């Protein structure tokens, strides 16, 4: 579960944390879009290299590394399976590129989720004219990620005590061993969702249509710069790719 850490807000005093969530949303979406435009190792590595300084600015590199370590099993799995099953010309090269793309995509969104407090996110959504109920649901979902992770650990403990051996056996067995974890997790979550809904209703959630807010977000100069710069890079890359294509050195890949 440690890979979830990278999508979890952490309180830090950094330039990135201070940005308006909307400008960070633009940054995240454009950098994800850019990652999706390429399928070669070199350009994807360059994208990743551009993202790492942002993580540095957000003081979250160590957290990111830890999550990547937690995810390494899945990443290796993707490489192995794609190499074995893919029908493209150079399967290994292709699956390495796919994996880097996945990391770049995750990093794009992790920069957003690491630095945006759930309350800020819902406020940003409300100011983007999304209905309060939806914005609230979104921030609640984010709020419950750590609770869910905690719950998952308790469930694993309970099943281990009944003799389930989670880290033994072949891949198929391990996947089957997840059932005793996932089913209680879903049920506990549904039960909790119902009781949260009841307690919200008993505190008159949704009574007033025009609610006011304590804090309002304001776009500042640095936010305009970030948003403008992200969109400019995206547009430039689209222009460049459609008129010139990638230079030869960027097309490099493994020959197998």
């Amino acid at each position: 579960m440690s890979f979830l850490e990278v999508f979890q807000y952490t309180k830090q005093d950094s330039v990135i944390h201070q940005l308006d969530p909307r400008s960070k949303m633009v940054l995240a979406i454009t950098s994800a879009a850019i990652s999706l435009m390429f399928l070669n190792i070199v350009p994807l590595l360059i994208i990743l290299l551009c993202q790492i300084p942002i993580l540095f600015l957000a003081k979250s590199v160590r957290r990111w590394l830890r999550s990547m370590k937690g995810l390494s099993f899945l990443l290796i799995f993707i490489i192995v399976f794609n190499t074995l099953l893919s029908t493209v010309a150079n399967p290994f090269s292709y699956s390495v590129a796919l994996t880097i793309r996945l990391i770049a995509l995750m990093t794009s969104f992790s920069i957003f989720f690491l630095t945006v407090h759930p309350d800020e996110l819902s406020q940003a959504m409300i100011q983007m004219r999304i209905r309060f109920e939806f914005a609230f649901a979104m921030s609640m979902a984010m709020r419950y990620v750590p609770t869910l992770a905690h719950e998952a650990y308790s469930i694993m403990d309970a099943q281990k005590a009944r003799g389930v051996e989670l880290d033994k056996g072949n891949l198929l067995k391990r996947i089957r061993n997840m059932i005793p974890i996932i089913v209680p997790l879903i049920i506990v979550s549904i039960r909790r969702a119902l009781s949260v809904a009841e307690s919200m209703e008993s505190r008159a959630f949704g009574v007033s249509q025009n609610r006011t807010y304590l804090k309002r977000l304001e776009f500042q100069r640095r936010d305009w710069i970030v948003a403008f710069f992200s969109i400019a890079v995206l547009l430039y890359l689209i222009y460049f790719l459609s008129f010139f294509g990638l230079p030869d050195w960027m097309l490099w890949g493994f020959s197998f």
Partner: protein
Amino acid sequence: MIKIEDIHFKYEGVYTALRGVSIQIDQGERVAIVGTNGAGKTTLVKHMNGLLRPQRGHVFLKDRDTKHMSVAEIARTVGLVFQSPDHQLFLDSVEKEVVFGLRNLGYSAKEAEERCHNTLSRLGLEGFADRSPFTLSGGERKRVALASVLATEPKVLALDEPTIGQDAKQKKLLAELLSEMNDAGCTVVVVTHDIEFVVEFFPRTVAMSGGLIVGDGKTESLLSNEAIIDLSSLSAPQTTLAASALRKKFPEVSNRITSVSDLEEIIVRLVGGL
């Protein structure tokens, strides 16, 4: 049976749960662990079946260090019933749920089924065998979780807050069941806040506070000790409170009274016998 030597455990972060706990529990004992919220009670029982490993110190099970034993291996000897049944129930019938644990521990399908039926009838759950655990009430689910552990007939049975959500009758049934198991040689360890339950059924009590054991001994002397009651944020048993009220008028009343029969004896004596 279980020997714990000076174990320390710290949860990730700053929160320390155990700060040097030693305890020895012999075969056939009945022990209650009481204490404040966050005293480390649950952490301690989780060390007994290997779910948590001491960061310092040792846990011995039948003189064997559990360091190199897997949880599944320990689970054959130490059965742990968790506070929340919802963390373990996942199958679509009570029967399957009970059989699941037995099969994990290596019992044949036939034997597992037999044990399952015996356990269900012992817990008054016969009628529920084919019901889905998710359609049962909280208290019933708790009993299903208990059944799934009882069926494995562990040498040591540890229960975390078994009386929560159970009505008086079920509590009594539970106590009878535990006594029965105990008479058959099973060691019973219970973590609880239910002081009346402790007084009636557990001869030995361990009081915890702030990750330490602050008292360990006979239930009646421990629970009539104000310092320990205070340290572990408990309320004294009703009988002890009644006795201390009596003592204001009759100084000869002992301050060591916890059981109903002792209190009865004193009252009978005070009114001049029957």
